[in-house]
């Protein structure tokens, strides 16, 4: 039996998390196919065909597949699911939205957010905000899995898979995409960036995030935030790093004005090097930081930007 990876894409390109998911799929030791569902998504289908290790791409293209509406995408996947032993989704907002719908329709359990493949039926996944890791075994005939991107390397390019057309299932008619407000940014994607600069409540207001932007520009870094900073309206929701926000594991994570609640640590503690800048020497973030600087961020951050 083969493995099916459900791609996340913007029509023209694959999103980074898809490549990490392919790597997890390849560890299962069977042929890996990729499903590209979307509207005007030939570019993404071609990109999927060029991923190393992928042998076949299923490309379904129809207006009702735009925006990855869970009802329509789940129905589409259900049509091919029984040809596969595993269905793997990136553990992104879109993947997390669709995967359980597919699992329930197949009457199988879902294994969420895996960080390790132990064998074809056994996986490791974080629980309790990453304060524990459970090794779980599934007895279901089809394994529906979401994959934590930061736990697997990105698959390389260099493949030459065939692209097969897959007919879309009809529109469910029960849900409709009204609008999207996407944050425009020229910076690297938060979950894929080599360096992340994050701000917390200590930033004081949204205006002060300009200090972090200047630092991020110097380092070609992505900008993140703690829940406190997002709740206070300093920055948009998609900046949030943490248990229920984005999980990041960059080479360098610079936490500025972040105290370090366990829910935030859950989203960044696998970073290779952690820097914390905070004026409160007792802040929990210092316990996990490799380099802690007890200082006023409004002085330290501009200095850091200047000295880099």
């Amino acid at each position, binding site marked *: 039996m083969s493995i099916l990876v459900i791609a996340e894409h913007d029509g023209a390109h694959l999103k980074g998390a898809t490549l990490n998911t392919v790597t997890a799929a390849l560890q299962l030791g069977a042929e890996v196919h990729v499903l590209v569902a979307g509207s005007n998504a030939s570019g993404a289908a071609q990109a999927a065909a060029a991923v190393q290790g992928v042998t076949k791409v299923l490309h379904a293209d129809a207006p009702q597949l735009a925006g990855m509406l869970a009802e329509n995408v789940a129905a589409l996947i259900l049509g091919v699911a029984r040809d596969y032993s595993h269905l793997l989704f990136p553990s992104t907002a879109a993947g997390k939205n669709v995967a359980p719908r597919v699992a329930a329709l197949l009457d199988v359990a879902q294994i969420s957010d895996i960080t390790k493949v132990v064998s074809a039926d056994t996986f490791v996944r974080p629980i309790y905000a990453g304060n524990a*890791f459970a090794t779980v075994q599934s*007895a279901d005939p089809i394994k529906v899995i979401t994959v934590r991107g930061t736990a697997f390397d990105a698959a390389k390019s260099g493949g030459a898979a065939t692209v097969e057309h897959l007919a879309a299932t009809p529109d469910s008619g029960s*849900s409709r995409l009204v609008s999207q407000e996407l944050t425009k940014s020229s910076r690297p994607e938060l979950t894929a960036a080599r360096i992340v600069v994050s701000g917390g409540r200590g930033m004081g207001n949204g205006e002060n995030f300009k200090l972090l932007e200047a630092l991020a520009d110097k380092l070609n870094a992505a900008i993140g935030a703690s829940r406190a900073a997002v709740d206070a309206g300093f920055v948009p929701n*998609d900046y949030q790093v943490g248990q229920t926000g984005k999980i990041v594991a960059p080479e360098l994570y610079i936490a500025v004005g972040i105290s370090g609640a366990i829910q935030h640590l859950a989203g960044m503690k696998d970073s290779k*090097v952690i820097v914390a800048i905070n004026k409160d020497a007792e802040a929990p973030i210092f316990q996990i930081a490799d380099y*802690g600087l007890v200082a006023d961020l409004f002085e330290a951050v501009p200095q850091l930007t200047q000295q880099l």
Partner: protein
Amino acid sequence: MKVLVPIKRVVDYNVKVRVKSDHSAVETANVKMSMNPFDEIAVEEAVRMKEKGLATEVVAVSCGTTACQETLRTALAIGADRAILVETEVELQPLAVAKLIKAVVEQEGPRLVVLGKQAIDDDANQTGQMLAALLNWPQATFASKVELAGDQVQVTREIDGGLETLALTLPAVITTDLRLNEPRYATLPNIMKAKKKPLDTTKPETLGVDVAPRLKTLRVEEPPKRQGGGKVADVAELVAKLKNEAKVI
């Protein structure tokens, strides 16, 4: 319109969990338990719908041990009208919970189910989507804004790149994200009143649902400890260490 709010009893979010010495699970005995924070947001949202005259009744439902009654009483104190406990000692996984809630939906006939996007214990993020699938209802997950209008509901969702708005035809399932609302504190008079509100108990067998777990937990471990705690005196030392020691810039 009746609104159903499924809630889960979990280890309180302030508790630092410990893995049992036999590595079978996380220690939950003698640990403070609370309502899953996302479910609290769901209860608050449903109660607000009732206060605005958009909902006629809010029914809270929980699946688990007798102790879940306490969590249901919290929901009643926030403002739910009545509660249902599906009582079982079996370890419940998301698919089983979704099947139990589906059975309750079929008995109760709500037009809307609102629940948390994930529980902070197993972090599965599955139950709402599974429920929607089993009912063949549309779903809007990770909601940060909900607007009811006739037989439609418009939901703004938090997605990876920002926000998107969906229009669903009722009946529908909505799962809540953090910024949907700020749940109220239950006042003492409301806590007292909640004790008198109806709380019915049923069982999976009565509902005809097989709740046997599908996933077997082989082992639970603590994550590797991170060696932190290093300090630098000033920005110059930080830059030097990042360049020469960590070699990340």
